[in-house]
């Protein structure tokens, strides 16, 4: 992949730019007053309500289904089972890998269920209480089958076959190599090996999924309102599933209450509600319960990795071998098999060694599918490399900061080509690490740590230096197109509406994009509205995920505005009877006379169209589809100080310091928010969260009662700061920050606790660092 040199961002001459300012968000007034419209807030005339019967078994044969009683229940409008929907297209997998086995994923189970939560039947009723009651009236004769939930057990000979046609439970194996890892290991002066896991996690957006589907019998058009990160892709794919022409399918993502990747998908229920609405000619609503959210919305991570690192005695890393066992779950959702390939891309982390050998084994289990969850493949890779590098440092009795600094590429080596085929755009990887070390006063801490250890205290410092691949991404490297769209409309009175194909759901682009548009057009921010999330209003877009909203959607908007400015200037020149005008502060100025006309006057002239500039068309709008030339690669350093209570296993986080480099910053307030939230999810993985299936493939952590996402009392104060290395791949110089905190956090925390326990001989701990795990490790019963 090539990089391009970015043109400098243009600024209006006299106004202080809004970009870079800490401004409060424009989307907030509706959110803080409870007047925003999430899916469950929608009420359409004559709307029905759906409830779904789901499998209580991890694996079972469905011998019979009796819907008679449910159908007769007063208020029930219809009941549909697998037989009714067998001709609906399968839930799509957008990832392709050589030899990938793709089970046919019906929207309702046919004769067999594959995981707890597998949808079997849908009840449609006039009221959600009635629909729920009628679910209990459906009688199913199941023949329970042996199930397997653990990916390593699923690979063992004789394990129950998740899909009977593939008894080895292997969906794919994937190999990638760069350089010559075998040679590097043969010549290595030191080799360190470790099994490192990244446990299964449940994304837990606070708003569960929900769908409202509507169908107009007259013109045969369908509207689907869904809590999604990808309205256009959903339109295309659900349209294909239902045979609904895409031009007669509108998808709206109303206010979306968090996604974290879990709504970057196409789900059975989205097509199912479309099916029901079309069958009945009535709007229908389905709102996922939290229990359903935990058993049927995608999970994240699910890695068992075997790491081997080769190095010289001086700490120079020479090679890495990794085998990844990826728990895929029962089916492929949209990107399921692709996620571990992102891990492979990022295996080298920020280090310059050029010899990598990787293997992925994708394993079916009787569980809900895994897919993209905040970080999606990169946290696993970062956790792995940052842990094994710490272990290597320990083996060599080297300082963990020193070994990192020794292995970073130098700033002059950028763009830097990695062993896995990526080109890191820009960076000075030592910079955030040195800054973080300064903030925690690294040398002083090490001295104090020595003292504390003499007193028997278990204090630790953990470093992670992470890099992430984001701003997804060049189209050849992404499953669905990696570009983004933007449209800028100036209405006849000069007010501006910006439409973005990205689909923010909390990230704040309604504000940052308005800042950008106001700056570029030189108008007050209050004259700008940002629209998104409705396929009837905006040009085809890709969506918000992979830290791409600003990094890909932003440049698209930037270029759309540049294009529009040319048109504005032409109308300005026409009105001013000038050959050429300058556009400054929302006005076209004739440099010769000093006379000016406003943007509103230009727009008015463009719509009134009494006269047109030569070769120009009426109207004042511009649309731009921007294809990024490369990914962007944010990076940073997180340092965590901890103290561990040996008797209780309690971890006390003394300080959390992070220095993130996400390139240029459009709004520091919002970037801080992204970092804090990211850290919370990284900390959740490191310390608390785990999706636990038992041997019968029952999800034991199936409610918020048993799945611990961080509460306010569990979070430390995050000391967040930045270095700024603009990305050369886009005109804004931004890199993306949505996933940084999550990726940087978990290895820093685990490294800190392992450091704290190292005097007791502890070398590695897998997440989550529960009190019991710490206690056992600290007391020699690992």
């Amino acid at each position, binding site marked *: 992949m090539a990089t391009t040199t970015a043109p400098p961002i243009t600024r209006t001459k006299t106004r202080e730019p809004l970009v870079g300012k800490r401004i409060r968000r424009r989307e907030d007034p509706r959110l803080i007053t*409870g007047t925003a419209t999430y899916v*469950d807030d929608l009420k359409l005339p004559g709307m029905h309500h759906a409830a779904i019967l789901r499998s209580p078994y991890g694996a079972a044969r469905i011998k019979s289904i009796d819907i008679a009683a449910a159908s007769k229940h007063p208020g029930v409008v219809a009941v549909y089972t697998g037989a009714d929907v067998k001709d609906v297209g399968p839930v799509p997998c957008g990832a392709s890998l050589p030899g990938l086995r793709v089970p046919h994923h019906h929207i309702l189970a046919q004769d067999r269920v594959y995981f707890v939560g597998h949808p079997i039947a849908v009840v449609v009723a006039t009221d959600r*209480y009635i629909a729920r009651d009628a679910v209990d009236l459906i009688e199913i004769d199941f023949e329970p089958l042996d199930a397997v939930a653990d990916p390593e057990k699923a690979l063992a000979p004789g394990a129950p076959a998740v899909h009977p046609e593939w008894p080895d439970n292997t969906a794919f194996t994937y190999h990638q190599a760069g350089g010559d890892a075998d040679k590097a290991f043969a010549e290595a002066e030191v080799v360190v090996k470790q099994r490192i896991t990244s446990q299964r996690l449940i994304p837990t957006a606070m708003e569960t999924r929900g769908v409202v589907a509507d169908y107009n019998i007259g013109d045969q058009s369908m509207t689907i309102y869904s809590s999604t990160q990808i309205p256009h892709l959903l339109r295309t794919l659900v349209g294909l599933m239902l045979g609904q022409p895409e031009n007669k399918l509108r998808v709206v993502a109303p206010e979306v209450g968090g996604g974290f990747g879990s709504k970057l998908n196409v789900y059975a229920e989205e097509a199912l509600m479309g099916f029901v609405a079309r069958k009945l000619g009535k709007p229908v609503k389905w709102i996922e319960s*939290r229990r359903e959210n935990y058993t049927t919305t995608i999970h994240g991570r699910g890695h068992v990795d075997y790491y081997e690192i080769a190095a010289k005695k001086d700490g120079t890393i020479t090679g890495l071998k990794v085998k990844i066992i990826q728990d895929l779950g029962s089916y492929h959702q949209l990107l399921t098999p692709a996620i571990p390939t992102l891990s492979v891309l990022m295996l080298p982390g920020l280090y310059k060694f050029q010899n990598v050998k990787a293997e992925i084994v994708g394993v079916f289990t009787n569980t809900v599918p895994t897919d993209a969850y905040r970080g999606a493949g990169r946290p696993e890779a970062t956790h792995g490399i940052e842990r094994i590098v710490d272990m290597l440092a320990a083996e060599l009795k080297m300082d963990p900061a020193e070994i990192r600094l020794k292995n970073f590429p130098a700033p002059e080596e950028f763009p830097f080509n990695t062993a896995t085929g990526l080109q890191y755009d820009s960076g000075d990887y030592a910079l955030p690490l040195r800054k973080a070390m300064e903030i925690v006063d690294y040398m002083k801490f090490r001295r104090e740590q020595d003292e504390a250890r003499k007193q028997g205290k278990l204090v630790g410092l953990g470093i992670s230096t992470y890099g992430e691949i984001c701003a997804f991404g060049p189209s050849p490297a992404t499953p669905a197109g990696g570009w983004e769209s933007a449209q800028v409309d100036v209405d006849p009175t000069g007010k501006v509406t910006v439409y973005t194909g990205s689909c923010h759901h909390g990230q704040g682009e309604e504000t940052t994009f308005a800042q950008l548009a106001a700056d570029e057009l030189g108008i007050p921010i209050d004259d700008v509205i940002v629209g998104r999330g409705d396929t009837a209003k905006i040009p085809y877009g890709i969506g918000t995920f992979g830290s791409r909203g600003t990094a890909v959607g932003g440049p698209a908007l930037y270029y759309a505005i540049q294009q529009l400015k040319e048109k504005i200037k032409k109308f300005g020149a026409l009105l001013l009877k000038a050959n050429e005008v300058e556009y400054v502060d929302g006005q076209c100025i004739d440099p010769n006379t000093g006379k000016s006309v406003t943007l509103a006057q230009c727009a008015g002239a463009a719509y009134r169209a009494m006269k047109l500039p030569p070769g120009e068309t009426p109207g004042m709008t511009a649309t731009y589809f921007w294809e990024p030339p490369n990914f962007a690669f944010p990076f940073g350093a997180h340092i965590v100080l901890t103290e561990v209570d040996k008797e209780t296993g309690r971890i006390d986080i003394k300080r959390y310091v992070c220095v993130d480099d996400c390139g240029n910053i459009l709004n520091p307030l919002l970037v801080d928010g992204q970092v804090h939230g990211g850290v919370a999810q990284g900390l959740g993985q490191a310390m608390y969260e785990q999706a636990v299936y038992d041997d019968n493939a029952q999800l034991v952590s199936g409610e918020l*009662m048993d799945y611990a996402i961080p509460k*306010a009392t569990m979070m430390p*104060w995050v000391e967040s700061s930045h270095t700024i290395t603009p990305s050369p791949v886009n005109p804004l110089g931004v890199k993306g920050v949505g996933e940084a905190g999550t990726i940087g956090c978990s290895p820093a925390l685990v490294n800190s606790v392992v450091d704290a326990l190292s005097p007791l001989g502890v070398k590695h701990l897998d997440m989550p660092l529960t009190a019991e795990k710490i206690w056992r490790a600290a007391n020699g019963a690992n």
Partner: protein
Amino acid sequence: MKITLTVNGKSRTDDVEPRLLLIHYLRETAGLTGPHIGCETSLCGACTVMLDGQAVKSCAMFAAQANGRDVVTIEGLAPAGQLHAVQEAFWNEHGLQCGFCTPGMIMAVKQLLDRNPNPSEDEIRHGIEGNLCRCTGYQHIVNAAKSAATALAK
């Protein structure tokens, strides 16, 4: 059964099923969109409203239990067109991202400041431990609570 209660200052009488949860009553019967549903185990706090001045989770009680009582949701926290100091503070301090937990979170902070006008960081964190947020990491919410406390003290 018939219930009569005050919702955001207005009295209303409705015929409800005994099993109707207060959250569904507020959202479906009274037509409000502020209180949200994020779980069924009364852990997430997105449904938090004030019942006779005390923060409660409206998904964990029946509408019938609110008969004769006074309910205030986020929509009734400030007069129309105005913001309560806590709302303003959430806005200023970026105490929200996706906004789904926010109405409940604001009510929890309101409850906290009603009882403790000058809370420490630790007290704030305990005051909102019944409200889950997956976006913010809570730090800006803590700032918002501090900032609201300062504003209310003036």
